[in-house]
């Protein structure tokens, strides 16, 4: 009995060590556009939040996106956290952060520094600051918000667009 449970614990340890909590996809803007922004997904509302580990207000609102990701899991909602962390900080900051916070939402590292070439394609309203959040459905940007969101506002926006 003791042996079996020991093996079980051991197996769990190995499994948890070999399977990362969350995969971080790496895209440049072209890939991000074709894989996410232009993707036609049957009426799925994509809630795309642009953030970075060094951005205080972003970190503050991140749990709300996690919350929404959980709460709307059975609805047509896909939460995507797009990190704009710097290349130097990908290994040293972003990956450890994702692991430490045990983030469950989909995570993309958008490594494309030619901001002026792509930022308008996300939204012409975007001044270039984060946090910023867009709501996309059937490859159309329905709403853009360049500010720190509260859980209530995030949920009501989603409910309105669903």
């Amino acid at each position, binding site marked *: 009995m003791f042996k079996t449970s020991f093996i079980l614990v051991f197996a769990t340890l190995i499994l948890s060590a070999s399977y990362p909590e969350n995969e971080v996809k790496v895209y440049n803007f072209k890939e991000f556009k074709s894989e996410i922004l232009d993707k036609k997904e049957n009426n799925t509302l994509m809630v795309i939040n642009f953030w970075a580990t060094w951005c205080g207000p972003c970190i503050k609102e991140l749990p709300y996106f996690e919350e929404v990701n959980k709460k709307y899991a059975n609805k047509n909602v896909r939460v995507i956290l797009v990190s704009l962390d710097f290349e130097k900080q990908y290994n040293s900051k972003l990956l450890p952060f994702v692991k430490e916070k045990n983030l469950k939402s989909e995570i993309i590292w958008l490594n494309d520094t030619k901001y002026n070439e792509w*930022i308008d394609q996300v939204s012409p309203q975007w001044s270039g*600051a984060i946090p910023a959040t867009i709501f996309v459905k059937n490859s159309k940007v329905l709403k853009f918000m360049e500010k720190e969101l509260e859980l209530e506002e995030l949920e009501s926006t989603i409910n309105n667009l669903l």
Partner: protein
Amino acid sequence: MKNLVPKIILTVFLGLMTISTVFCGGYNVGDMAKSFTLKNVDGNMVSLSDYKEAKGFIVVFTCNHCPYAKLYEQRIIDLHKKYAAEGYPVIAINPNDPVKQPDDSYENMIKRSKQKAYPFVYLFDETQNTAKSYGATRTPHVYLLNKVQDKFQVAYIGAIDDNPQSAEDVENKYVENAIAALKKGKKVAISSTKAIGCTIKWK
């Protein structure tokens, strides 16, 4: 009913235009910039009119704490070293509310400017009025001014260059190209870009 649609669209469009004009505020390229008098890290008050010889200014709204401001810090120093002698000194202005961001207090500005031996003035926009009148929203956010008679005309607004992360990989040096055009008396080809950075911490 069908005919109504274009009208509705037009109304909404005009409405949006009004909103954006109301909220955007600040300067557009071509506008004449107001002078200001702000406190430098050395304790002296500085205003644009103190620079009798200047042909213009590289006004940069920046700060201590913002990661983008840090990435650009050396490039701002280099800009001043290169262009001050040519008549375009850097005027760095910190517009952040130190209550919201203690790293950006006047005392910390003094510290940072000493550590890095800033060759330019580093002014504290305590009331945030200068940032507001310029329409700055982020750090770093550049307003390149060109002296026209006794006034200063905004010649370029936006980012310093096209690569915040890596100075070596820059392909378009927006500010330097704009100054080069001004010196030749030519039109600035790219006169506005989006300045990627941190939001100014308003009171």
